[in-house]
């Protein structure tokens, strides 16, 4: 926070459509983590902490040893289901390094949806319990159904049309055409094709849904004293925030944040800690399991009111080349790959370094927002300038 830490290394495996990776999740994790260590010009033994999120196919402690890392000094796991906690994991790494518990903490995510099951499907046989008992028996089982309800209500309440969802999808595909790593590279999308695509769950068309992917990525959060000696320009961690309103964790659409993304408290914390306003942000990566999630997040976190968000995202306002708020400049979950949103954090760092395939000229402040989805939501803010 504010000068104590920076992201010093990033690493990725190749990204694939679900089921197409020839490598296991563990092998892709090894690729991404060691690429991040090399990118930072650290030695393997310099990495002494780990933060993960989402219940993983592989146990994190065991994976630490399989990855060949050294003596472990800090480990933690962020709360929540997945996409909401990518920025929270980075914030936890920041907190651990700031507190002195570790010097270089790796945050990674590796998934092989071909092996562990595609995230868009349900395919569970156990009888649903807790909050799910009030959702699944009525068909609100797949993520798209629950998100369609949230987005539908948000659109209804604030008078938002289908064109706003199209604008999010089109900006994502526009940026993916410039990113050879994106699984939708070479597959441009038109507004006509968007509207002609089949419904998945109204108001969400096919192109409103994120990719299902195999791949891994990693970032390394380091103490500020090391940053000048490392190879890459540091992406200074100005602030992180994780949160929701008091009743945000209640079940089955009875949470007090409905129909929002639980990001208003996150925004308040973030802007106050960083000492900036939303209008100061040069480029933003938003976790979008579905296009409409971004509409909710943009207004929740403070870029505009919910009634203004359709105009805010219209036309080329989200494009890297002159947009009001350049958004998901690698193509994001919609068109680059779905690595549970952590690949958006990698792209946020690239924007600080000036190495994005859709680089925002002169970007100094780079935002990563994780959520909506399961509670709580989170965000981190990076700066090219030492605080």
């Amino acid at each position, binding site marked *: 926070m504010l000068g104590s830490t920076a992201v010093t290394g990033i690493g990725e495996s190749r990204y694939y459509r679900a089921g197409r990776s020839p490598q296991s999740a563990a092998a892709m994790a090894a690729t991404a983590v060691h690429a991040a260590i090399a990118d930072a010009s650290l030695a393997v033994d310099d990495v002494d902490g780990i933060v993960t999120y989402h219940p993983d196919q592989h146990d994190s402690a065991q994976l630490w040893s399989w990855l060949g890392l050294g003596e472990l000094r800090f480990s933690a796991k962020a709360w929540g289901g997945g996409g909401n906690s990518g920025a929270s994991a980075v914030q936890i790494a920041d907190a651990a390094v700031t507190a002195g518990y570790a010097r270089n903490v790796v945050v990674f995510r590796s998934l092989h949806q071909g092996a562990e099951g595609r995230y868009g499907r*349900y395919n569970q046989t156990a009888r649903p319990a807790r909050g799910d008992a009030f959702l699944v*028996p*009525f*068909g609100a089982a797949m993520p798209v159904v629950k998100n369609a309800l949230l987005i*539908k209500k948000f659109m209804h309440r604030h008078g938002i049309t289908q064109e706003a969802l199209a604008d999010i999808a089109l900006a994502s595909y526009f940026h993916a055409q410039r990113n050879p790593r994106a699984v939708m590279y070479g597959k441009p999308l038109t507004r006509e094709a968007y509207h002609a695509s089949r419904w998945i769950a109204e108001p969400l068309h096919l192109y409103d849904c994120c990719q299902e992917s195999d791949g891994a990525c990693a970032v390394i959060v380091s103490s500020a004293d090391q940053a000048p000696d490392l190879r890459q320009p540091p992406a200074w961690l100005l602030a992180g925030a994780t949160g929701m309103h008091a009743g945000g964790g209640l*079940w089955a659409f009875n949470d007090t944040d409905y129909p929002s993304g639980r990001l208003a408290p996150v925004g308040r914390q973030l802007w106050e800690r960083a000492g900036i306003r939303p209008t100061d942000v040069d480029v933003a990566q938003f976790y979008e399991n579905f296009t409409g999630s971004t509409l909710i997040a943009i207004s929740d976190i403070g870029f505009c009111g919910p009634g203004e968000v359709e105009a805010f995202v219209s036309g080329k306002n989200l494009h890297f080349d002159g947009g009001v708020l350049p958004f998901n400049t690698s193509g994001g979950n919609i068109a680059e790959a779905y690595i549970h949103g952590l690949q958006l954090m990698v792209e946020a760092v690239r924007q600080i370094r000036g190495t994005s395939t859709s680089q925002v000229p002169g970007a100094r402040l780079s935002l990563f927002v994780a959520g909506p989805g399961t509670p709580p939501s989170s965000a981190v803010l990076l700066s090219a300038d030492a605080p």
Partner: protein
Amino acid sequence: MSQDAVTPRYLPADWPLPEITAANRAFFTAGRLTLQRCRSCAQVQHPPHDICHHCQADTFDYVAASGLGTIDNVTIVHHAGDPRLADRVPYNVVIVTPDDHPDVRIVGNVVGADTVPVEIGAIEIGAPVRCVFTEVPDPDTGETLTLPQWELDQRDVARPVS
């Protein structure tokens, strides 16, 4: 139709049924719309749980609601996402607010409305509904479960939904 009207299961017979607990038994077995009310602070909460989120007490009454409600939200699901649903799409999922407990949101399905496909569009936010029940045996205990479902209702509704 009255609140104790019984309707066939909307989703396929092999689609999951809820795990029944002490807290949710009344909601899923009472045969009329039943909500959990805290004995200490008298607040109604849904879904029911082991403790009251208002005051953290853990003793409850289970109170009958009128069964009249309003559509708060609706989606039509076109993509199955599970082989058990492959022959059932498109289906609707709604959120209903009971007229006598407007702060409570109950997820369910509007039944009957999609026997004629054109009527799917009739499920609109703000539409009045009435609770009906699907009776189905608990696959583990044989106990009769009564899943609350909803029928579109012709009565006038005065309560706007934003």
